[in-house]
């Protein structure tokens, strides 16, 4: 059973970033994003500096740029909102290429675009270098309540169970010569959703009881010894520290 160990955004590479402990990476990404969001939107070159930092991390993690660019399109609906703002905004206006644009709207659009993109790319880098199992382990080591990590563990397991069972049921339906695809056949779809839920639950219940009978008490056993070494924390701290210095330099410079 090779399923369930990776997720669609994980890039299986060997790199210094991949080797870092998950809790260290989570902390670095959270701090980076917070600094980016509190940076005033008019500090244009600070955002350039942040982007350079992310490029360096991506290069170290051996994540190719096209891979990142393709997955960053998740942000697109908000970029479209940003494009509409200079036209819809109020207040002072400037003329550009014959169009009357609102200054506040332009700043707002830039704000959403810059902060949104930096945040999405940072999260993508975390996802690309960390497996699901490691991520939950990292949250657990960061003292995230066990209820959360427990629900998350089961959720990630069940996603595969759901997908597999849905595929099996579809094949079974096709094998019986029925392929509902029109609106008046929606009842067949609805019934399969309910049946899928129950099948997945009963399968998962058996697995859970088997786990409990083997001594599971809300936490998966940890293979490696507890905490990340101080060196890893230092290495990961370079990102937020560099980000903070850029923000500070920008604040002092203006």
């Amino acid at each position, binding site marked *: 059973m090779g399923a369930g160990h990776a997720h669609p955004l994980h890039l299986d590479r060997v790199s210094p970033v991949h080797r870092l402990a998950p809790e260290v990476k989570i902390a670095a990404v959270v701090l980076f994003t*917070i600094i980016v969001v509190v940076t005033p939107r008019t500090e244009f070159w600070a955002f350039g500096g942040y982007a350079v930092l992310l490029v360096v991390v991506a290069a170290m993690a051996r994540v190719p740029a096209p891979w990142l660019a393709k997955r960053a399109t998740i942000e697109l*609906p908000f970029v479209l909102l940003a494009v509409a703002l200079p036209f*819809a905004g109020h207040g002072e206006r400037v003329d550009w290429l014959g169009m009357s644009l609102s200054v506040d709207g332009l700043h707002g659009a830039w704000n959403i675009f810059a*902060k949104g993109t930096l*945040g*999405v790319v940072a999260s993508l880098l975390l996802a690309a270098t960390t497996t699901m199992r490691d991520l939950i382990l990292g949250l657990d080591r960061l003292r995230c309540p066990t*209820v959360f990590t427990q*629900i998350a563990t089961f959720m990630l397991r069940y996603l595969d*169970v759901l997908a597999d069972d849905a595929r099996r049921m579809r094949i079974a339906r096709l094998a019986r010569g029925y392929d509902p695809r029109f609106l008046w056949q929606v009842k067949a779809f609805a019934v399969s959703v309910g049946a899928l839920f129950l099948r997945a*639950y009963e399968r998962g219940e058996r697995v859970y009881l088997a786990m409990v009978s083997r001594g599971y008490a809300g936490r998966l056993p940890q293979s490696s010894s507890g905490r990340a070494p101080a060196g890893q924390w230092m290495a990961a701290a370079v990102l937020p520290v560099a980000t903070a210095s850029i923000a500070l330099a920008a604040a002092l410079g203006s």
Partner: protein
Amino acid sequence: METTAMHIANGIVDGPVSAAFAVLAVAALAFCVRKARNDLDERLAPMAGLVAAFIFAVQMLNFQVLPGVSGHLLGGTLAVILVGPWVGALCVSTVLIVQCLLFADGGLTALGLNITNMALLGTAAGYLLVAGLLRILPKTASGLAATAFVASVISVVVASQGFVLEYALGGTTELSLPWVSGTMAGVHVLIGIGEGLIAATTVATVAKVRPDLVYALRRFRRPAFAKVGVNA
């Protein structure tokens, strides 16, 4: 599967308001964690995971209605009926945290806002409606399905208005509030109907086959082993 789900991104709502809602979300979730400890037994733990996975899957269904305004199913009411309000809120939050960290969906600093809207407001509205409606409707599979449908529609609209409140307090851009509010409500009534149909069919099936798994019916169930005791 192409993932196009989208929650509030970084930079839409300003820092102080995001931070305030993050504090609110953490406090409320800490309360839920305390309450959930009593609920999470060997029947509910795998159910909570499955409900979370189900919500994860349905949140990928995304409706692009206008440029920049998209919505998706929330799943809060389904969670409330099957696992109760406390574990339900935790399920939806877990989905949001994992989506944020693993799928870059929704900004990290907007996590407090997203959790407040979808995990707290959505499930709270859903729970109140379910608890109220089940008092007057029959406690059967069809009664439960009707409850699930109505509660889904209303809770989704309530959750969408949470964003309007946050935007009014700390929006980084100038858009007229009635427009934002009206668009969000209009889009989410349609989404709520879709969500209501999915929740109703799922809940009705579970209630028919395994009524013991439906949290919302627990209060109304007669203790089964009392009768066995008399016979023995």
